[in-house]
């Protein structure tokens, strides 16, 4: 049984999993948030697709003898399309757009010449496998791809060859920027090391806005790869985010402002050397500004930590917290006594608390399990997150104002960019 909103997803995904004739009955949508009576009325009513009585259809599906086609075995190779398309430039733009291979903005046409130029920026062979990607692990079978297929997408995004190792590093993780969840999730990548300056990335004024080619294009390449390398980003089929998210256009690409930070850079926190070029990935709900928070009016140094704590308290605990701190804020926190990011994380973990009653009223905010759960009542005060490593910090910005932004996102992993040069 599937709710009607997931009709295309259910039908196509059953086919991709070798069950093209799976017997599916549909209910109205949604189920969540409905009363018992409303849900029972769904069951007592008709399947909105077939028009037949729903539960009668379910019982029939479980008892009707199988047809020969429903018992078929064998292996089918799905079509992948021609290796090249030959048309006028205008018609090719239209073809790529009509076939869901773009972000609905014009692309740079991936000619052999441009792709070859991209391939020269890596020592890896064009036919070398890079990784596997899926719009949702476990839900959709992952697709595989080569260095050349990544290069084609990099060209389309407008990348110059110097960006290619970073784009390959993203592709190597298999992380889709367009996770199929209904939650309209977003992705972020933090870039550390000398590569930031080599690519002339912007980690100063306007770093997270449309003011730098590398920041913009590397992020756009991630989105195009998430559509083309894994069959993702098809709304209603492999992408189900109810409202979508504007960040999905080119994601949060955050080169850390290492030189103006009082703390070791993010990749060093994760055990890498300062001179290594590393890209680190985050994933979660969204990003928001953190101004006007409690404690920010305190002089002479605003209590940034108090504001940060107040701002993350309403977050869903399904994901953690990623703070993007302007160097003015990071240095202000240093002046307040936070000599390391770990010290700040520890303070936030201890001081950001919620009541059990509040947690129970929030969606996607689970209560502690195991020994921590013993003896809890509705009035018990518990940490927002059980572990300090749920809090992560990156320094980025141009010091024109002591601002910070915060994302309800969790750290996933860090990988080498150097490996792909």
């Amino acid at each position: 049984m599937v709710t009607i909103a997931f009709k295309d997803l259910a039908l196509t995904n059953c086919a991709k999993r070798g069950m093209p004739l799976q017997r599916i009955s549909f209910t109205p949508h949604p189920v969540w948030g409905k009363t018992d009576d409303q849900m029972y009325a769904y069951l007592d009513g008709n399947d909105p697709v077939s028009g037949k009585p729903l539960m009668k259809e379910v019982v029939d599906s479980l008892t009707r003898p199988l047809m020969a086609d429903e018992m078929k075995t064998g292996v089918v190779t799905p079509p992948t399309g021609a290796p090249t398309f030959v048309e006028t430039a205008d018609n090719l733009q239209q073809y790529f757009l009509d076939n869901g291979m773009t972000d609905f903005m014009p692309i740079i046409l991936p000619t052999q010449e441009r792709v070859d130029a991209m391939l020269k920026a890596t020592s890896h062979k064009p036919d070398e496998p890079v990784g596997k990607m899926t719009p949702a692990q476990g839900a959709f079978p992952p697709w595989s791809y080569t260095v050349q297929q990544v290069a084609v997408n990099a060209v389309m995004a407008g990348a110059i060859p110097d960006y290619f190792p970073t784009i390959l590093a993203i592709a190597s993780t298999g992380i889709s920027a367009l996770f199929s969840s209904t939650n309209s999730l977003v992705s972020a990548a933090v870039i550390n090391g000398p590569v930031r300056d080599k690519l002339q990335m912007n980690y100063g004024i306007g770093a997270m806005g449309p003011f730098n080619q590398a920041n913009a294009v590397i992020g756009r390449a991630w989105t195009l790869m998430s559509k083309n390398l894994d069959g993702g980003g098809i709304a209603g089929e492999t992408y189900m985010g109810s409202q979508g998210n504007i960040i999905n256009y080119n994601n949060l690409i955050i080169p850390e402002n290492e030189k103006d930070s009082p703390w070791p850079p993010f990749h060093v926190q994760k055990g890498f050397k300062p001179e290594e070029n590393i890209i680190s990935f985050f994933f979660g709900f969204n990003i928001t500004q953190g101004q006007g928070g409690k404690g920010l009016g305190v002089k002479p140094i605003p209590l940034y930590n108090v504001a940060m704590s107040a701002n993350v308290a309403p977050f869903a605990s399904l994901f953690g917290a990623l703070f993007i701190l302007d160097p003015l804020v990071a240095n202000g926190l240093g002046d307040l006594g936070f000599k390391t990011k770990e010290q700040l994380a520890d303070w936030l973990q201890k001081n950001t608390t919620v009541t059990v009653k509040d947690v129970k009223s929030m969606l996607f905010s689970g209560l502690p399990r195991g020994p921590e759960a013993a003896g809890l009542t509705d009035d018990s005060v518990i940490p927002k997150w059980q572990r300090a490593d749920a809090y992560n910090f990156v320094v980025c910005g141009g010091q024109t104002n002591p601002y910070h932004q915060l994302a309800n996102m969790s750290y996933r992993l860090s990988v080498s960019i150097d490996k792909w040069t």
Partner: protein
Amino acid sequence: MNRRKLLSLLGMSPAVLAGSPLLLADDKKKKEKGAAAAGAFKVTALNPRGLPPPITLVPMAPRLATLDGKTVYLVSDGFPGADAFLNQISIWFKKNMPSVTTVYRLKAGGFADDDPKLFAEIKAKGQAVIMAIGH
């Protein structure tokens, strides 16, 4: 350097020249040139798509002759509302097919995680499954 760029350097909006006949003539020439190029030449572009895995066809499980007297497992993956909806299905069976026994179970892990223990139980004790999956 064209005038648009020059105006930008001077801190002025190139839009002030929107009505300039000279600029319009420049734009027209560019458009004609572009259109001629786009119409005259064909370009070869490479396919950006990855490789989907081969699909192994899975024969459907044998059907039951009837649900009468059978046990149907109602399995939730923990998505909000799934437990309440499955409870209504259980009530529907009680009202409409009372000989059917329903058993509710919450699957371990996330929506895509296997739960071998649960599925072994269903194979041993049940005859059919209705599963509610959300993610």
